[in-house]
């Protein structure tokens, strides 16, 4: 009640103020006010929890009521069953040279969107690198210490000797067959990244660093993004959907590989930065 009056009078009732006000000087703050603060905060948290539960029940009700008004699942009248299907499925093979319409679509008709996605991945990796870079010396010492004492796992090493080449071949297969079968740049790149991670886990990070140094890593991810930008620019300049299907297929293939490079370096980069704080 008193908080309601406070609110009516225009005073803030909650300890978490949205607007900045000058903090009270520290001398005034006695033990009693601190206990007061704590009680107030606890009361606020209780109210907050009740409000959150009520809000979520309301959200469920709204969403379910909305969902009930949608056309039935898998019925032909769904909003996704529209002229876009006829346009894309009908002319994707002739225009993009891809039998996998999804891959053809995301790399041609929605190519700018996919470029944006690659940029999102790139920027996320840069942010992670920046954020975990500052803790680098401490983490590096820790990692070096743990590396010395961690004996190599014999079973894992033997399994990975057999598995990693197969996984690499499978990843390349997905990457290069993206326009014919399910897959493409994103899944192929993810599998290649998983292969690198498996290799790093089984044989230690130094073995990976022998061929995948910081310089190579930067070169791979930057050249992937640049390759995409340049080739998509060429594709649009030559006339986008109008160009001959064979040329379109080659261009799409290379763009797909570029996406795969970006995704692969991002996957391995996330793993490396989170575990070791460096590549």
């Amino acid at each position, binding site marked *: 009640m008193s908080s309601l009056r406070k609110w009516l009078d225009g005073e803030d009732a909650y300890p978490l103020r949205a607007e900045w006000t000058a903090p009270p000087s*520290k001398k005034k703050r006695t033990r009693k006010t601190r206990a007061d603060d704590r009680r107030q905060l606890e009361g606020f948290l209780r109210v*907050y*929890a009740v409000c*959150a*539960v009520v*809000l*979520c*029940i309301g*959200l*469920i009700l709204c*969403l*379910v009521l909305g*969902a*009930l008004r*949608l056309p*039935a*699942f*898998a*019925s*032909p009248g*769904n*909003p*996704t*069953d*529209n002229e*876009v*299907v*006829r346009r*894309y*499925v*009908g*002319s*994707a*093979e002739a225009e993009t040279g891809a*039998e*996998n*319409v*999804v891959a053809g*679509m*995301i790399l041609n008709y*929605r190519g700018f*969107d996919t470029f944006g*996605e690659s940029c*999102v*991945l790139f*920027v*996320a*990796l840069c*942010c*992670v690198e920046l*954020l*975990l870079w*500052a*803790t680098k010396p401490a983490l590096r010492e820790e990692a070096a210490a743990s590396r010395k004492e961690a004996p190599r796992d014999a079973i894992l090493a033997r399994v990975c000797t057999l598995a990693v080449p197969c996984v690499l071949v499978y990843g390349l297969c997905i990457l290069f067959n993206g326009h014919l*079968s*399910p897959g493409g740049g*994103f899944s192929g790149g993810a599998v290649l990244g998983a292969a690198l991670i498996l290799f790093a886990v089984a044989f230690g990070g130094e073995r990976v660093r022998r061929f995948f140094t910081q310089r190579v890593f930067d070169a791979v991810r930057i050249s992937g993004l640049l390759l995409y930008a340049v080739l998509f620019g060429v594709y649009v300049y030559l006339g986008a959907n109008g160009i001959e299907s064979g040329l379109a297929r080659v261009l799409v293939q290379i763009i797909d590989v570029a996406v795969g490079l970006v995704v692969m370096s991002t996957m391995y980069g*996330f793993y490396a*930065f*989170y575990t070791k704080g460096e590549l």
Partner: protein
Amino acid sequence: MLSLLVENRYAVTASVLFAVGFLHVLLHPDLIKKVLAFNIMDSSVFLLLASRGMIAARTAAILTDGGADPSRYVNPIPAGLVLTGIVVSVSVSAFSLALIQRLYGAYGTTDMRKILEEMKKRGE
């Protein structure tokens, strides 16, 4: 009512999952659990999109036996949208986990309330 629920079971599941994730984002004090709850919300949206894309008696848009008959394949757009969504969700999760790791380095805990208390104590 019940038949409507069964007819739209995927959409109903997706909305319940979304609300559960949202509740956890609001209520759980642990920041890592909040990120996990965000991922649950993401998955519910993907479920809704993918289930909307499905049409009975049609297959995924991979033109296998040469025929490009539009009445045999589903719309490729929802699949592309889910792909976009997955990429964005992975990036956001990675970024927020990196932030949480920095917070852990500074305060020694991932509990949001303890972090706030510690901040107050240090007078920040």
